[in-house]
């Protein structure tokens, strides 16, 4: 009879194949928090979050905006004296929280990630004019006006394409991805 993994073990397993050291080697020094350029927008610093994972505070971790505020700049990773790939951990937590469908309601990251992947599966390319409506409504009135001003300025300079382009062999790409990730329904 298999024993159930703790949350901390589950997250460690997600990083099992990564290059860095396991997260339980963290010495809580806070170099990551001091380095992170987005730390003031996080509800917990990376150091605190790693401590929370160790303490198995699953709900608190998944409801945190910390990993969704990570811009993947790898500055913490290259500076971590314990050699932990903290950026890799943030990616792992994004995947885990989407897999468990547990995340803060007002975040744009999870929905954006989903619509982005769906778009790539549809056309093989990113196309902002179709993506934008999926998130811009969450910006509030002022943010939406700002984005509209920016978009129209880009359009006037001929920097916004009007029609999405599909890659050649998109059907083959879909078949390829299906061999790696089950995308719903029996294969």
């Amino acid at each position, binding site marked *: 009879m298999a024993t159930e993994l703790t949350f901390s073990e589950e997250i460690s397993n997600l990083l099992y194949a990564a290059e860095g050291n396991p997260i339980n080697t963290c010495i809580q020094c806070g170099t990551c928090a001091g380095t992170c*350029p*987005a730390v003031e927008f996080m509800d917990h610093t990376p150091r605190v979050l790693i401590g929370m994972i160790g303490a198995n505070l699953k709900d608190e971790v998944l409801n945190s905006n910390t990993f969704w*505020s990570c811009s993947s700049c*790898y*500055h913490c990773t290259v500076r971590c004296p314990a050699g932990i790939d903290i950026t890799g951990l943030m990616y792992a937590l994004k995947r885990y929280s989407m897999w468990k469908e547990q995340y803060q309601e007002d975040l744009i990251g999870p929905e954006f990630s989903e619509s982005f992947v769906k778009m790539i599966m549809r056309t093989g390319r990113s196309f902002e004019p179709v993506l934008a409506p999926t*998130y811009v409504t969450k910006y509030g009135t002022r943010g939406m006006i700002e984005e509209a001003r*920016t978009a129209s300025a880009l359009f006037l300079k001929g920097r916004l394409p009007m029609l999405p382009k599909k890659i050649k062999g998109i059907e083959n790409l879909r078949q390829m*991805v299906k*061999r*790696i990730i089950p995308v719903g329904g029996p294969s």
Partner: protein
Amino acid sequence: MVARNLALAEKEGLDFVAPCSGCYKNAYFTNIHLQEDPDLADHINFALAADNLHIDGTTQVKHLIEVFIDDVGLEEIEKTVTRPLKGLRVAPYYGCQLVRPKKDDEDVENPQFFEGLISAIGADPVDYGTKTRCCGGSLIITNRKAALDMVYELLQDAANRNTDVIATICPMCNINLEVYQRQVNREYGTDFSIPAMYFTQLLGLALGVAPGRLGIGKELVSMAPTLLFYQSEQVGDRAGER
């Protein structure tokens, strides 16, 4: 997805060059993982077979700036420059993923190769502290406030050092620094007007390529001061010839 792009290059026997740091980082490390992990390579090749593709990991992955610095060489560039951008203060913006995660023994905190390229085209590289600090990347979509703050920090640092132009090596950084500069100004009550140019645009100017062919004129933060400078240099050169 990355392996598919690498396999397409491999099929043609070509090197893989990315103009964007994020694409470069993903391609570079995917290639290494596939070379070092045969189980992973088997699994990926099973998927690629659905598209009649296969990957051996024999392709070389490079960022575009490495092509100019390592393959062409700074000496060669210096020799080819016809319009040196003398006196133009250019801030080399490395951003994150060109130099991170760490590859071999590279300098992830204070790299110098971009400064070398800027010197080679006759301009003055600006020494500033935030050259490898993040521009916010895709947070500009998913966490606008955080990203605008990160762009603000970079612009302020560049402005403090009397920067004429920020040179970028990634289209995404370029967008954040250039396209969102007006939003930063409105958000922070600042008055930044620092053009950001992809490094090949500056290189092209120094090589005498017509500005229109370099996409100059499509920017939201006017490059006019840079061009004015460039043209006055040309006039100066001509005067010298007479």
